[in-house]
Every structure is written in structure tokens, then in C-alpha cells.
């Protein structure tokens, strides 16, 4: 089965530093997502992306966050100035089409971000 690939698997950074989390979605997919899971809490939606623009974003996705598809294969999440509360597991996901009816959402294995 095709896979969504995320790198790195673990990222440690100092508070205030910028981080970029990388994802390679499945090649023929058109919709891309970032979710995060703070330890012991729910998996939360951050942002969806289609046709090189953000489709929807949650309240969590403030001005410190940005997403980009720089080269047609990678999908990145940037946090400009990390805060302690950004420590979480970040999941990338992709689907061929939008919506749940006929599409399967594929998740990557996540990047564990630790902000010190």
C-alpha cells in the first residue's frame, strides 16, 4: 500500500527557533493535511491544502504556522517561532479527493516535535 512519508521522526528545538516539518504525500493525491496530537490529548486538525492554497485552517493554525508545497512532491509545515506548547506529534495526511465518501485518508507516521 502507498505511504505518506514524514521526516524527521523526531525533532528537538529551542523555544523561539523556526522548525520545518516535512512530508511526502502519496504521488497522485491532491489534498493535504496537517494534524497534531499533544501528548495524552486528541488528534487535532490544523490545516488542509489544495491547489496550492489553504482550504481550511483551525484556530490553532495562527500566524506562526505556514504550509507550503515547494516542489510538487513535498508538503511542509513551518513554525516560525516555536513555543513550549507546540511540543506534539505532528501528522501529515493526504487523499486523492476531498471528502470521506469515496476517499481514504492516508496518514504518515508522524514527527515528534519537542520544544525545550
Amino acid at each position, binding site marked *: 500500500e502507498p505511504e*505518506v512519508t*514524514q521526516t524527521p521522526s523526531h525533532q528537538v528545538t529551542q523555544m523561539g527557533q523556526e522548525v520545518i516539518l516535512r512530508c511526502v504525500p502519496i504521488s497522485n493525491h491532491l*489534498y493535504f*493535511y496537517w*494534524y497534531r496530537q499533544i501528548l495524552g*490529548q*486528541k*488528534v*487535532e*486538525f490544523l490545516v*488542509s491544502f*489544495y491547489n496550492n492554497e489553504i*482550504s*481550511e485552517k*483551525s484556530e490553532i493554525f495562527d500566524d506562526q504556522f505556514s504550509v507550503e508545497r515547494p516542489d510538487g512532491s513535498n508538503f511542509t509545515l513551518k513554525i516560525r517561532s516555536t513555543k513550549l506548547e507546540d511540543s506534539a506529534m505532528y*501528522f501529515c*495526511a493526504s487523499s486523492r479527493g*476531498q*471528502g*470521506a*465518501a469515496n476517499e*481514504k*485518508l492516508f*496518514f*504518515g*507516521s*508522524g514527527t515528534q516535535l519537542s520544544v525545550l
Partner: protein
Amino acid sequence: AQSVTQPDIHITVSEGASLELRCNYSYGATPYLFWYVQSPGQGLQLLLKYFSGDTLVQGIKGFEAEFKRSQSSFNLRKPSVHWSDAAEYFCAVGDYTGGFKTIFGAGTRLFVKA
């Protein structure tokens, strides 16, 4: 607002015993419902999904779930649990307000004892 509740934080069952993980949802229209499993160090894997039709849905790894509109529930079941089923299980609902996104429950950690 759409929400998903998984009332059990963790459950322990004996290998070979049956399993039922509870899930209740809140959604204004006909829900799209999912169960995902997360093994340690792994991503989220879709077990099964419900959109319409037969309210008993079969999934991978021998799991099934039953949609009960009257109870706003979508409980996951397996007749005989294997040690490899130990993982975190997430119930989720598809939300079509705005674009499409998945709203997850808090998860239930399944422990399997020999």
C-alpha cells in the same frame, strides 16, 4: 459543534476474549464515521468507515463497527482479540463544514493480557 466522545481511556482484555470499544458522536447531519488504529511509532491506520447503507460495517484485521443513530454511537467490536491488537484506537467523524476535516476522539488505549 461536531464532536466525538470515547468514554474509556484504556481497556484491558485477555487474549482471545471479545472486545467492544465505545464511541459516541455529535453531528447535525448524517455522519461519516471512522475508526483508526495507532500502533506505537506508527501513523494512523484506517480500520473501517461508515457513510450510509448497512449499519454494520466490516473492516480490516477482523474488526467491525455498528452505527446506531438512535444512540449516536459507533462502537468497534472484535470477537477474539490477539496480542497484536494492543494499540490506541481513535473514533472519528468527518466534518464537511468549510472544507473536509476529520474530528477525532481522545482515543482508547487497548491492553491485551496473555
